[in-house]
């Protein structure tokens, strides 16, 4: 076995140009496939935190007129007592804006972090912990921010730049995309945006009245209501001056955005795949052809055809593994250096699976041509043939 591997390695070194070319092609394939998937992930990353709310019966609550008095507000609260409400709260202090998310949303919002770690809610802390966007004030991990009212914020992580801030806005085709806005430090000067969770806010001394709740909210009933009950609640809310968008419609629009984003890449991925496949098949063919004479010598010295195929496959394994290692390194560099943010580069476990599938596929494809050539070749003829110089 070791002998086969040594011969494979030697044959890899014997034709460096063509083999490095194959390594390069595979490297580009792996990086490109991960890019496409990372692009898709960057959308699901935003959709996942709000998905549990949207997938249950409910609606988005749009106040088209201010509520009339406390009694109206109480009626609304009473109507929605069996519902979970996704609402974003904000606390402003000078150049600082603290966005407060419900605990479950905060936990599932996995925005890429540039530095530090998103804090563990269960761990104790003296100060209110926040994660911050990249900012012109140079505030980073471990820094504390003194706000009005003597409140101290402790920064545990810095998000990548640009990033997203949860902010539910309204659009006629409402989807998860309208629940975020982009934050890019180069446009914000001294402004600093922070995220924290509701439980963290509750533990702090921030006065309740200084925290404002955003206008639009997502209502999600814990249990499925009967048609009559549901319609009754909707009607009462509309009478209170609310417009409603059913969650099902938001889910439909969100799914459409996800599938459109995936769909728009299909032709590009196919075109790319065809180019690369053509290259890999032909390279492995050319490589195997040029190896044939050497293999014929091995055959005459007693190696079986299977061993000859294994030597050729071994060479392809070296090529594929080199490409996989190089692409892993490139992906890590892209992720760490921040270049990935320009492309919405979000890595998940699906990236590992798809990379493994591509590597296996490439091994299979690149093994076919040599196997066919070797099984059909006549070693004696190969050694006596001088037609090709």
């Amino acid at each position, binding site marked *: 076995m070791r002998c086969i591997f040594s011969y494979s390695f030697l044959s890899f070194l014997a034709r460096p140009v063509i083999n490095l070319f194959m390594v390069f092609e595979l490297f580009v394939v792996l990086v490109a496939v991960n*890019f496409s998937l990372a*692009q898709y992930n*960057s959308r699901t990353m*935003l959709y996942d935190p709000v998905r549990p709310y949207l997938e249950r019966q409910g609606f988005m609550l749009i106040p088209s007129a*201010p509520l009339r008095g406390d009694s109206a507000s109480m009626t609304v609260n009473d109507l929605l007592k069996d519902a979970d409400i996704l609402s974003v709260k904000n606390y402003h202090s000078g150049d600082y804006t603290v966005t407060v998310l419900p605990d479950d949303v905060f936990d599932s919002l996995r925005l890429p972090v540039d530095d530090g770690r998103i804090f563990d809610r269960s761990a104790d802390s003296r100060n209110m912990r926040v994660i911050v966007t990249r900012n012109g004030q140079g505030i980073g991990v471990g820094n504390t921010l003194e706000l009005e009212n003597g409140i101290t914020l402790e920064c545990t992580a810095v998000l990548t730049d640009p990033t997203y801030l949860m902010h539910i806005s309204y659009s006629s085709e409402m989807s998860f995309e309208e629940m975020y806005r982009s934050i890019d430090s180069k446009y914000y*000067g001294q402004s600093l945006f922070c995220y924290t969770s509701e439980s963290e806010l509750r533990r702090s001394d921030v006065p309740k009245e200084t925290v404002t709740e955003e206008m639009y909210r997502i209502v999600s009933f814990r249990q499925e209501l009967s048609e009559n009950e549901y319609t009754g609640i909707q009607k009462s809310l509309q009478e209170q001056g609310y417009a409603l968008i059913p969650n099902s419609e938001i889910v439909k629009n969100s799914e459409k955005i996800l599938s459109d984003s995936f769909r728009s*890449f299909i032709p590009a991925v196919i075109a*790319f795949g065809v*180019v690369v496949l053509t290259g890999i098949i032909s390279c492995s063919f050319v490589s195997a052809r040029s190896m044939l004479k050497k293999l014929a010598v091995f055959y005459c010295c007693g190696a079986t055809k299977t061993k000859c195929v294994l030597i050729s496959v071994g060479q392809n394994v070296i090529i594929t593994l080199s490409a996989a290692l190089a692409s892993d390194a490139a992906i890590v560099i892209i992720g760490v250096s921040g270049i990935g943010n320009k492309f919405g580069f979000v890595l998940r476990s699906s990236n590992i699976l798809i990379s493994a599938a591509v590597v296996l596929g490439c091994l299979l494809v690149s093994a076919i041509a040599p196997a066919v050539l070797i099984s059909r070749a006549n070693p004696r003829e190969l050694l006596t043939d001088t037609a090709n110089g």
Partner: protein
Amino acid sequence: MKMSLFRYVRLNIRTMICDHTFIFIMLILSATVTSLCLFFSYGIIQKVQDDNSELGDEMYFYRYDLPRTPNIRECIKRLKDDAGDVIWAYNVTVTVKDENGAEQHAEVLIDSPNNTLDMSGVYLHESMDHLMHDEKIALNGNVLPVIKTYNSYEMAGDMCIPEQFLTDDMLGIQLSFYVDPEPTAKLADRLNRAVAETFGGTSSYTPTPVELLKKQENNTFYAYAFMTVMIAVLNLSMYFRYIVEIRKKQIKIFRTCGAAAEEINTLFLIENLTELVIGYLTAFLLFRFVLFDRLLDYYPSFKYYYSAKQYIMTFAIFAVGSLLTLMLLISPCIRRSAEAGERSVE
């Protein structure tokens, strides 16, 4: 001389087909795929450029906590004077009082040269029946004409008031606007100053780069288009190298028979270019008559990008690019083989 050159080209191609069928097929296939990639990448780049120009290098300023600002009309006028050269769209929300004294939110329709909306009345969404009285509406004590609409959401909100109907007792509560040029920190500062001076208040207006997701997607498309063409060109160059390699003996024979290195070079260049043109024409037919309609399902804007001029331009790029690649890759190999042939003759 020319006749014999073309005869040799024909003969060489025939030899390639007979002796190296697989390589010949793969070469044509590779040339076809490269040309298809060129067509496709051209369309993708056009699409991305269009998308980016639609997004505009714009930023969206907003402020939801605008202090209740009176004289909103004056404020808008002042903002127009201060920064109207860069702001191309405003979105101002004011509070108005209906005939019962209840507060409502209304969007302000700001007149601009691009505005095609009828500015003679207040726009009301159909659902706001309770505010309508015989096609008139009383707002802050003034009776105004109503324009009913099913899609006031498309404009701004449930109620939209043309700028001319604004009165001093309508309070501004929310402001957002788009700016056209490339956003910079300097521009942001200028706008912040203009807004602060106009509306008052201390907190800065936060610019929002529009549609980060779309921009990231477009960047990925760019990267794809570039990588596809690059790999396709590399594939082709690999073939050319291999073809020269498997025909070293033939080059030596030509040299031995007295052909100059330049002549052999020209012969191979013409032969390979002919094969590339066959590949290009195959790709053109495939793209125009088989793939194009399918691509329109994915990218409808493609139908605007491909005219005869564009195909000719793509061909020119393909031909010049191929010629350069061939000259860079093949010529040195041929020269080396020819020199080797010369030495063996000596």
